[in-house]
């Protein structure tokens, strides 16, 4: 059974059907792309998958559990973590704290242990510190662990957001335009990072992206939507030559 199984997902805002009958099935370890022209409903799909919007109808089964109607933090616990199109870091906190906040659920001490600093506080905090440092090492950011998130250069802020999502220990990672605003060099680095994440953490990745080099370069399978409807599914070569996709992007 697929890790993420979405069927007939529909959402209506008043009279507007933003997403209509969306379906996707992602196996664990898969790298899947979701593309479409501006306003096609890609981010709306993400928001439904992560519990920000409640779909009008349809089912979302994540790792065998139906997550429709669950709160965003419950869906994170079920195993789906995301990043945002416009970076949403905890700007005034340090890089390390950003990661540690996402690691919150994996720390096992209660509020009394925390206030009185009992041994479990020290043990768990040390574990969290080591974990955060290891994770930052993977992203080559250990040296900036103590700087404030807002002071990082743009490319690193993007990376930190991905690292933070990974710290929730997800089964599937949803990346919303990770390459937006990056230069070709940074995009290349990002591609390597995405491969690295998939191989190292053995998780599935679903990404929305406008940078076709990136999408065609790394995704094994791509879903294309336009006006909320799926117009094509296939591997990059099929998508490139699909007349519906060309029509959606370039017009007749």
């Amino acid at each position, binding site marked *: 059974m697929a890790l993420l199984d979405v069927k007939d997902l529909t959402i209506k805002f008043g009279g507007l059907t933003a997403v209509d009958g969306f379906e996707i099935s992602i196996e664990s370890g898969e790298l899947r792309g979701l593309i479409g022209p501006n306003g096609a409903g890609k981010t709306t799909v993400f928001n439904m998958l*992560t519990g920000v919007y409640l779909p009008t109808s349809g089912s979302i089964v994540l790792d065998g559990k139906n997550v429709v109607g669950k709160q965003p933090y419950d869906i994170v616990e079920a195993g789906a973590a995301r990043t945002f199109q416009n970076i949403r870091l*905890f700007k*005034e*906190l340090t890089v390390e*704290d950003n990661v540690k906040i*996402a690691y919150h659920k994996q720390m096992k001490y209660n509020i009394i242990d925390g206030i009185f600093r009992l041994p479990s506080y020290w043990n*768990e*905090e040390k574990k969290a510190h080591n974990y955060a440092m290891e994770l930052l090492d993977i992203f080559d950011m250990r040296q900036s662990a103590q700087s404030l998130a807002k002071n990082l250069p743009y490319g690193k802020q993007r990376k930190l957001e991905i690292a933070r999502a990974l710290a929730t220990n997800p089964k599937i990672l949803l990346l919303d335009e990770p390459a937006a605003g990056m230069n070709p060099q940074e995009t290349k680095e990002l591609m390597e990072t995405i491969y690295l994440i998939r191989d190292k953490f053995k998780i599935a990745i679903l990404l929305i992206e406008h940078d076709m080099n990136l999408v065609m370069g790394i995704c094994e399978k791509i879903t294309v939507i336009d006006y909320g409807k799926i117009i094509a599914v296939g591997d990059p070569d099929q998508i490139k030559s699909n007349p519906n996709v060309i029509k959606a992007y370039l017009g007749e």
Partner: protein
Amino acid sequence: MAGKNKKSNVINLIAIILVFVLLNILTTSGIVSRYFAGILVTCFINIVMASSLNLTVGYLGQLALGHAGFMAVGAYASALFSIAINEMGMPATIQLVLSLIVAGIITAIIGYLIGLPALRLKGDYLAIITLGFGEIIRVAINNFKFTGGAQGLTGIPKIVNSNNSYWVTIVVLVVLYTLTRSRHGRAMKSIMEDEIASEAVGIDTIKFKALGFTISAFFAGVGGGLYAQYTAFLDPSTFGFMKSVEILTIVILGGMGSLTGTVVASFILTLLPELLRDFAEYRMLLYSAVLIIMMIFRPQGILGTKEFSLTGALRIPAAIREKKRAQNDAEGGDL
């Protein structure tokens, strides 16, 4: 890292005891008058009130304007409890601690009940709803029989002095400090930074807002308990809207998210009106001017979100030497 922590803990502990000894010498030897010792107690009460509000405003990022209401609940709860157990002839310290705990728990329960619906709102709306609840509490107390109504509550044992209120303040500050540096405190800070991102990394924002608000109410109750057993007389009109604003002013002046800033601001805003008593008619004018100047030149508050640390301060001379040496080296290199 643990070694450094231990060292700073020892330094802080020594400082706390030194201040206590100094306080004791000053008050018992009569160098400072009883009047001034009383002002000190007011300072401590303000520290407790403002630092508890700082948890809601500075760490949770929620603007609450009903803190005086919680103070009133705590004050009346502890006063009634203290009157009830007064005949048992307990040592004053135990009576005080018990009454403060009772005050804290009752206020926390009320805070939780108010917080659950109120915290679903944000920003201005939350400010208005907490303001409303604060007034409801005051008006309710004004009309109950057992609280003495508008005539006030008398006969409360006066067992708070500058010594025991000092220790209560220290305990409150230490608990708030460790709390805000635990995983729960981090979760609260993340809510203030970005609520959507916070939910997206698995933080149950409603639960943590309620938790922060409840703890904040608990310590507001403790502050109220100190107040009740210091003044020995309670009048509902003390706990009006202006009291909430006064506490909020301390938090903003000290810096939202800085406990040590709150301590400094509490002293400034409690002492300033007293010191200006000689210029009675210009007093409020100066007081307001200080606030305006402060907000123009340092809108983030005295300490911003930073904490003053003794170990850090002790390192300053060494840091300056280091800097000078580095400068000399650089100049030497140029030559």
